[in-house]
């Protein structure tokens, strides 16, 4: 019987270790997802393909819900559509009790189509058209006002509409972290937020139901949420004091980090990502320790997106070629490019072989298949000695990649959901050239007879 082959490799030994924790000895393989072999998934659904695990979504949701409901009596989650608005994914979250959090008319209508009641849709974002606002007001949705122009447009609409709009304002603020997001909503420190609230209350035309903030993204400092929650509760207390009006909810937005490692980070995301309990403790402590009386505690709404779906998503693909760069470094080309892995612009994604490999690795640059210099999935990674045709798995890609993707050079592949019984379902079919022909028009003079 012949021995197992591995391609010959020589690596120069460099003195010193890359960090104080040393190098990992072996790259583990991911051979299956939820008990289904990667090779079988690729055979059935093609390469590359996105794979989503419903079981992981449900486990993560249970974990974050437990962290908050153990500490606070009234908690409501709203699924952040922009993070992943595949209808099947949205419906999984809605089946778990999540409302919808949308940021455009397109997303708003998607939520309605997914069976979400208007009163359970939170409408965020700076771009709400007059038509979008009329629809949202008529459906009784929760409109989070982003700027004064929007506030006055809603006031205008109240002249012609019979329904009283249910509104909140988005508040931006200094929470002690950098960067401070100040492009959305009304500023707390300069008094703009208080001014907006007074205008809403004095108009008498809208029902102020809540206060909203979204302090940033991939927040590694839970205390920033405590600062934000304290500032929102201050506003709530002041409104009650001045107008004897109690707001119904405080919406803390999203922004929880995941275990993905940001580019330039010294330690891996797995070591630095705060737990859901830490976030929950910071937020709920700030609210319960405020001057709001216990019987008037508002509902706490969370629009957590990334942290709920990232772990559930995988990209599976195939090695197209191995090459040498001019300086002798290995370069490996895979069929997954930045067009379908947008988050590779800010994450050092974890990439694994789909079969067991030896301890030997090479310093490798992993490129996608695009004929474009920016198509770099990993600039430098110690990677096993894979051959053309070997399969790879990119882990933790569930957030943003299926919405922020680009149809560029190649077509977008199948997206597969593995349900909790281990059955597979295509939830978005692979694009074909016909997909694009349907939307393109050729002027008559360019059509040859």
């Amino acid at each position, binding site marked *: 019987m012949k021995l197992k082959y591995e391609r*010959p490799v020589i*690596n*120069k*030994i460099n003195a010193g270790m890359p960090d104080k924790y040393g190098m990992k000895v072996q790259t583990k393989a991911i051979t299956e997802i939820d008990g289904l072999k990667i090779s079988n998934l690729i055979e059935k659904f093609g390469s590359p393909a996105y794979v989503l695990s419903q079981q992981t979504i449900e486990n993560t949701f249970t974990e974050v819900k437990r962290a908050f409901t153990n500490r606070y009596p009234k908690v409501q989650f709203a699924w952040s559509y922009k993070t992943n608005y595949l209808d099947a994914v949205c419906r999984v979250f809605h089946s778990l009790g999540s409302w919808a959090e949308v940021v455009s008319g397109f997303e708003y209508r998607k939520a309605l189509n997914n069976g979400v009641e208007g009163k359970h849709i939170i409408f965020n974002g700076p771009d709400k058209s007059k038509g979008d606002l009329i629809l949202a007001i008529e459906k009784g949705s929760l409109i989070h006002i982003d700027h004064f122009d929007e506030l006055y447009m809603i006031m205008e609409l109240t002249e012609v509409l019979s329904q009283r709009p249910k509104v909140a304002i988005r508040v931006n603020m200094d929470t002690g972290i950098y960067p401070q997001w100040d492009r959305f909503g009304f500023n707390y420190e300069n008094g703009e937020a208080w001014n907006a609230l007074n205008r809403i209350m004095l108009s008498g035309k809208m029902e102020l139901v809540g206060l909203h903030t979204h302090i940033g993204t991939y927040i590694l400092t839970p205390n920033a949420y405590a600062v934000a929650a304290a500032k929102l509760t201050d506003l709530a207390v002041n409104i009650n004091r001045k107008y004897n009006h109690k707001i119904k909810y405080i919406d803390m937005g999203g922004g929880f980090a995941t275990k993905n490692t940001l580019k330039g980070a010294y330690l891996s995301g797995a070591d630095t990502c705060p737990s859901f309990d830490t976030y929950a403790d910071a937020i709920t402590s700030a609210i319960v320790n405020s001057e709001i009386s216990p019987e008037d505690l508002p509902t706490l709404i969370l629009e957590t997106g990334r942290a709920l779906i990232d772990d559930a998503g995988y990209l599976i693909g195939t090695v197209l070629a191995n090459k040498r760069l001019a300086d002798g470094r290995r370069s490996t080309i895979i069929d997954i490019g930045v067009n379908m892995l947008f988050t590779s612009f800010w994450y050092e994604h974890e990439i694994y072989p789909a079969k067991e490999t030896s301890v030997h690795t090479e310093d490798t640059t992993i490129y996608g298949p695009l004929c474009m210099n920016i198509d770099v999935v990993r600039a430098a990674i110690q990677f096993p000695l894979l051959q053309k045709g070997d399969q790879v798995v990119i882990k933790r890609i569930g957030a943003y990649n299926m919405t922020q993707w680009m149809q560029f050079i190649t077509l977008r592949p199948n997206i597969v959901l593995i349900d909790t019984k281990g059955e597979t379902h295509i939830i978005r079919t692979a694009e074909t050239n016909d997909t694009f022909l349907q939307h393109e028009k050729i002027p008559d003079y360019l059509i040859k007879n």
Partner: protein
Amino acid sequence: MKIKKNIAISQSGFAFDPNSGDSFSLNPIATEIVNLLKDDKDEQFITSHILEKYEIDEFTFQRNFDDFVQMLKHYQFVE
């Protein structure tokens, strides 16, 4: 193609170049190939030896061998 005589290589795949002071690690198949080259075996002999011993087709090995030789030249292992 000849490997420099003063390149030392251990059984475990640790190689040392006394001219540059650089150290290298090789996987078992690479170690085997370098030792065959040191014994003045030619490419044809090495290819048939590897194909006989390991689960690999000729085309894949040829690609890998060419790539490996390129790296031996890059690290100045070759006379």
